[in-house]
């Protein structure tokens, strides 16, 4: 491999490393921005329907029914990239499933480029 080839390799390596870094950092940023849920989740009409209160709840507001207990909590109806995937398909998108392959690719690129450098020295 001549000097021009070695230059190409270095540039390609840098591009791949930057892409891997961006993908990892991007997934982590989305994870943080969407609430740092442990597992990836998506909004659902079903959850929205349960969470949508009818005026029944309002009607019993001042009756003392909830005295000392407060409002009943709800399951969050959000779309969030979790740290881990929660299933197949789109639910497999997560920090781990993006960062993991990115680390593998980065590792491969670094090792290959080091080996090429070594070969070049010995030649």
């Amino acid at each position, binding site marked *: 491999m001549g000097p021009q080839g070695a230059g190409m390799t270095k540039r390609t390596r840098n591009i791949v490393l930057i892409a891997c870094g961006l993908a990892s950092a991007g997934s982590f940023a989305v994870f943080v921005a969407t609430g740092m849920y*442990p*597992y990836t*989740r998506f909004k*659902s009409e*079903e*959850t929205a*329907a*349960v*969470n*949508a*209160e*009818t*005026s*029944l*709840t309002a*009607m*019993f507001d001042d*009756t*003392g*029914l*909830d*005295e*000392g*207990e407060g409002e*009943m*909590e*709800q*399951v*969050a*109806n959000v779309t969030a990239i979790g740290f*881990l*995937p*929660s*299933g*197949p398909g789109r*639910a*497999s998108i*997560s920090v*781990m*499933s993006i960062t*993991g*392959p990115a*680390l*593998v690719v980065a*590792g*491969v690129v670094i*090792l290959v480029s080091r*080996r090429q450098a070594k070969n070049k020295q010995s030649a």
Partner: protein
Amino acid sequence: MRQHFQRFLAASIAGVVLAAAGTSALGTGLVDESALVASMTAAGPIAKAAASGKSLVPHKEHVGKGTMYHALTERDAQIYFVSDAPLEKIKGQSNRVIGYVIAGSSGSPASLVGGEWHLPVASMKTGIRKRDEHMRSKDWLNESAYPDIVFQLKKVSDVSLEKESDAFATYKGTLVGDMTIHGVTNPVSVKGARITFMPQSKATASIAAGDLMAIRAKFSVTLSEYGVDNGIIGGKVAEVIEIDTRLYMSTVKPEDQPKQKKGE
């Protein structure tokens, strides 16, 4: 160098595959059948669902014993549960509880005579589909064999009037009954439950037909006492599940209620 690289590659791929395989909170495990049998108590007959699926056919011994209130299903959330384990906090809910309760005499309506509620396991949602599937599986609540969680109310003790107006009366008491989960029945006593009665008025009629009633109760359930004994319990799923219920009921069955739009 090559060996190191191969090990690194293998470990990385294994990690990603494990993660992508859906290491959701509920994995596989074993049900301890001996624990199931040991904690089982004699359960009364379970009421059948009406043809509509929105109410229960009351037990014969309850008919004519007092005013009957039916759970208003498929409206507001009725059950909220939390598993707070060291590795994960799981929250779930349902608005598909069906059932009925018989009020006590007019002098002490909160001294409920009896009742029964069914919570379909299939209706319990945690916000993650795969986890819901695990929850319904044989390793957990085994929905195919035990489709409902059942609470049979025997009585209400320690009843006291807490708040009253022309429009409502709220009582505090202890719900005493039997809880059946995963085919195992245990006696349950829920202290500090609140029961509110609200007779029909112009204000209530636009929201739900009939005299209304609501029950708010918080209690906990220990999974192993119901034969749910899984290797994951303790780490990702708590041994004790906290449950919060708020049931709205009416003397008019849900299938006979005028259609209600959400938000109205």
